C-alpha cells in the first residue's frame, strides 16, 4: 500500500462526497437560528421615518439608505441619497460587497413592510449587523413627512423641531425628485457605490 494509492483513495472519497453535496455558489445564512431570531425581534432594528428624515437633512455620511424597489419605481421617486438594490437582486453576489461598506447603518426601505423586512432577515442572516429598516416604508414616509402639516393652536419646542425637520426633509425630497430625469439619473449614478472589487491574484 504505497502513499500514492492512499492519497488517491482519500481524495477520491472526498471528491465523491463533494459530488453528492448540494453545493452552489450562492450564499447561505451563517448565524445561528436562535441568534437571528432574537436579532430580528429586536426593536432597535426599526427606524421611524422621522429618524430617517433627520439623517437625510444632516446628510450623515455614516448612514446608507437602500431602496429595495424596482429600478423604475426608484427612478420616479426615491429618498435623497439612497441607492437602489432591487429586492430580487439582494442575494446576488455583489450586493454583499455593497452592504459590506463600512457604514454604521444600512437602512432598507420598500413601499411597505414586506420586502424591507424580508431583506432585514436576509442581511442579518448573512451576518451584516449594520442593517436596519425604515418602518412603514415609502408609504409611511409620504403619510408622515410629505403630508405633514401642523394643526393646532400652540406648538411645543419638541413638536416644533420635529415639524421643522419634516419640512426640510420634504423640501429636499421634492427638489431632488423634481429634477428632470437626465439630471436625476446623473445624480443617482454619482451616488451609486460600485461593489468593491476583490483583491488578489498576481496583479
Amino acid at each position, binding site marked *: 500500500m504505497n502513499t500514492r494509492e492512499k492519497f488517491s483513495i482519500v481524495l477520491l472519497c472526498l471528491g465523491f462526497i463533494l*459530488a453528492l453535496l448540494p453545493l452552489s*455558489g450562492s450564499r447561505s445564512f451563517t448565524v445561528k437560528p436562535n441568534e437571528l431570531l432574537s436579532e430580528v425581534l429586536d426593536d432597535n432594528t426599526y427606524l421611524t421615518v422621522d429618524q430617517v428624515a433627520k439623517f437625510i437633512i444632516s446628510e450623515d455620511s455614516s448612514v446608507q439608505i437602500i431602496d429595495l424597489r424596482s429600478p423604475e419605481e426608484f427612478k420616479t421617486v426615491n429618498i435623497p441619497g439612497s441607492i437602489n438594490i432591487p429586492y430580487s437582486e439582494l442575494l446576488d453576489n455583489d450586493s454583499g460587497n455593497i452592504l459590506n461598506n463600512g457604514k454604521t447603518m444600512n437602512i432598507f426601505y420598500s413601499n411597505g413592510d414586506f420586502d424591507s423586512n424580508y431583506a432585514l432577515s436576509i442581511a442579518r442572516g448573512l*451576518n451584516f449587523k449594520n442593517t436596519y429598516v425604515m418602518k412603514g416604508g415609502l408609504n409611511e414616509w409620504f403619510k408622515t413627512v410629505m403630508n405633514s402639516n401642523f394643526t393646532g393652536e400652540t406648538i411645543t419646542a419638541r413638536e416644533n423641531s420635529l415639524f421643522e425637520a419634516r419640512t426640510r426633509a420634504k423640501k429636499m425630497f421634492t427638489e431632488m425628485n423634481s429634477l428632470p430625469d437626465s439630471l436625476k439619473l446623473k445624480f443617482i449614478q454619482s451616488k451609486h457605490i460600485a461593489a468593491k472589487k476583490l483583491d488578489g491574484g498576481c496583479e
Partner: protein
Amino acid sequence: MGPISSLITMPEWLDLLIALLIGIGFGFSLEQAGFSSSRKLAGMFYGYDTTVIKVFFTAAIVALIGSQLLSYFGLLNLNLVFVNEFYVAASIVGGVIMGAGFIMGGFCPGTGLCALSIGKIDAMVFFAGGLTGAFLFAETYPLIQNLANGSYKGPVKINEVLGISPGLFAFLLIIAAAAMFWIAEVAEKKFARPDITNEI
C-alpha cells in the same frame, strides 16, 4: 463568515503580517517538496522525476476540497474569494511564454525564490532575469496593451461554463489527477535516470 479580511477591516500591519506568514508556509512547503532543485523540476518534462505534477495537483485539489467544504459548513463565502479574471489571449500567449521560460530556466518564480533562499546561484540569476522580464514588460506594455487586455471574459468559473456543480467537477478533476499520478509513477520507472536523481 470568512474570508476574515472581508469581515473586519484589518489594519495594514495585520494584513501584511498574514502575507508574511502565508509566504513562509508557501516557501517552506515548496522547498520541502524539492522545488528548490531545477533539475528536479525539469525532470517532469523528461519523465525521470514527476514530483511537480504530484505536488501541484495534490495542492490544488486539497485547497479545492477544503474551500468547498468550508463553504458548505457556512464558514467561507466563496463569493468573496478572488477568482482570476479570464483574458483568453493573454492567458494562452502568456502561458506559452512561461512554458518556454520554465524549460530554459528550470524554475518558476515561486520555486526560483526558494531555490535562491537556500543558496542556488542559478536561481539568483533566474531572479535577476525575472526582474528584467518584469521591467521589459512594463516598458513594452504600450505595445502589447491590446493583447493583454483583449478578449476579457471576467472571473468565470469552469463548473459554471460546463453547467455542473462545483462538487461534481472537483470529483472529475480528482479522478483525472489520480490517473495522472499513476501514469507519472509509471513514467518515472520507464525514464528512470538514477545518475541524475541520485545527484538531486
